[in-house]
């Protein structure tokens, strides 16, 4: 029984059953949206401050104590700006694109468990839902590129679609490894199955999932669709005002969603000693976000062909090997599951990463991977 279910059963004492259903779900949805928006604000603030620290500068620190009101100033600026639609742009597509991009980022959180039983709907096909919903945002990005009537926006949109298609495969295959060990598609059950966090049981899958979802949410070094040096800012170039704000929010919304999914699938979700479960969940999400920032501030942007090669020649074969390995271990050695599996998988992951990075070495006259 989830928390929402208990709330609904308590509400039935006061109102008819249909009203109790609606009220309970509305309360849950509002709570989730509030959580997501607050976390997005925290993420944007943290990103700007921490990237500053990575670059040995301060970051925004003028608005309010330590710059915490910078985002409010920015959003006031965005809200008061004129909303411009390109003259020959497709108005409705241009208008709907930010919404289509942002809505999936919110919808993912319907199945993310924050605590035992604290989940909006405990879907039995949780991962499938997450994968399906989060792919929809690419349609929004494509709409933004198409509706803008701008060649750079369209190039960015095409890049985004190609990138999403390429990286969806290794990400899903890495997630299948998790499903095999946990024996369920439901995110709550996956969290409960993690007495040992799954990134210890299948480090290769964690590696692939981390890099793949970094590419799917278009974070640097995979942010080809807003490569400032090549295509200005890509798909959101023709956007201004709150439409741009929504695209900006959706970027961080997807980052938050990806952090939550990685936390849930690989880092043990809300499980952890001493501290309350929700706090553990937050700590892990922020940790994943910190890794995103760390990689962003280190690695330069990939070229398009390198990006595709990385997905098809590196992550996909590795994901297949990982899936084969996990499947064999679950099928034939279920007794040796935790510790033997950990040792074998770490060894395999190390060897595979070493071998594959040899294939990706550039220089010495070699420019293509």
């Amino acid at each position, binding site marked *: 029984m989830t928390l929402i279910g208990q709330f609904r059963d308590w509400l039935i004492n006061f109102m008819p059953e249909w009203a109790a259903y609606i009220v309970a779900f509305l309360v849950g949805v509002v709570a989730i949206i509030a959580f997501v928006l607050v976390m997005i604000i925290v993420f944007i603030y943290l990103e700007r401050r921490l990237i500053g620290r*990575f*670059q*040995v*500068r301060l970051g925004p620190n003028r608005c309010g104590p330590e710059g915490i009101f910078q985002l409010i100033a920015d959003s006031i600026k965005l809200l008061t700006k004129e909303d411009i639609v390109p003259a020959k742009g497709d108005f409705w597509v241009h208008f709907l694109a930010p919404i289509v991009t942002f809505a999936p980022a919110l919808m993912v959180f319907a199945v993310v468990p924050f605590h035992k039983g604290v989940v909006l709907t405990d879907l039995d096909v949780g991962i499938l839902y997450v994968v399906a919903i989060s792919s929809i945002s690419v349609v929004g990005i494509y709409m933004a590129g198409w509706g803008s009537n701008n060649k750079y926006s369209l190039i960015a949109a095409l890049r985004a679609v190609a990138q999403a298609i390429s990286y969806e495969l290794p990400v899903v295959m890495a997630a299948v490894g998790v499903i095999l060990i946990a024996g369920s598609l439901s995110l709550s059950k996956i969290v409960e199955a993690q007495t040992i966090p799954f990134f210890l049981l299948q480090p290769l899958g964690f590696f692939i999932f981390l890099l793949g979802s970094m590419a799917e949410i278009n974070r640097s070094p995979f942010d080809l669709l807003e490569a400032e040096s090549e295509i200005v800012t890509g798909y959101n170039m023709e956007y201004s005002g709150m439409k741009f704000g929504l695209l900006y929010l959706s970027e961080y919304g997807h980052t938050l969603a990806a952090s939550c999914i990685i936390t849930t699938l690989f880092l043990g979700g809300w499980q952890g000693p001493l501290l309350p479960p929700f706090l553990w969940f937050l700590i892990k999400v922020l940790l994943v976000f910190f890794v995103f920032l760390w990689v962003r*501030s280190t690695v330069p942007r990939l070229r398009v062909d390198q990006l595709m090669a990385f997905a098809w020649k590196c992550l996909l074969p590795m994901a297949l090997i990982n899936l084969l390995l996990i499947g064999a271990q679950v099928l034939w050695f279920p007794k040796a599951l935790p510790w033997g599996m950990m040792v074998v998988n770490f060894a395999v992951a190390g060897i595979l990463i070493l071998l594959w*990075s*040899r294939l990706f070495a550039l220089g010495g006259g070699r420019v293509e991977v």
Partner: protein
Amino acid sequence: MRFERYGIGIIKGLMVTMKNFLRPPITLQYPEEKLITSRRIRGNELVWQVSKCTGCATCAKSCPQGNIEIVTHLGTENNYVVDKLQVDTGKCMFCGLCVESCPYEALFMGRSYERATYRRRELVLSKEALELSEDRQPSGYFYPRIEVLLPRQTLLLYWDREDGQKLCWFPWRKKANRGRR
């Protein structure tokens, strides 16, 4: 076997950024925090010591711009009294020749560098504005005996302190010892 070819480069890069992350930022928040300038700075003004000046007008002769205007009359004790000493710092190119040519060590370069004004006429410094005072101290330019008394130049905010550059990551501890010494 070169490890650069086995993906170690990314790990090295990550370590570099992590090291930078743990360093305190080198940003200087200018109006609140200022670095100490060079001890021999040729600042945006001249400093004039009235008691040593004999009104010989060597400075005016040495000025390549013809920028120093000096008017004197004969005093009672066989000396010159300076009526007018006027320098247009808008025309001045801060070559320091006037300071070097002064035979009586009455003229120094100043140390200030924040003398932007809204009007060009405010750049013309009169006799009163040039005088040596508490907040208008001479720089060590051409005068090594003044130079050794001045504080050493700082190029980075957190460096060259007594305690050296330390990790002060948290802002509430950082505020206490920031700014000009």
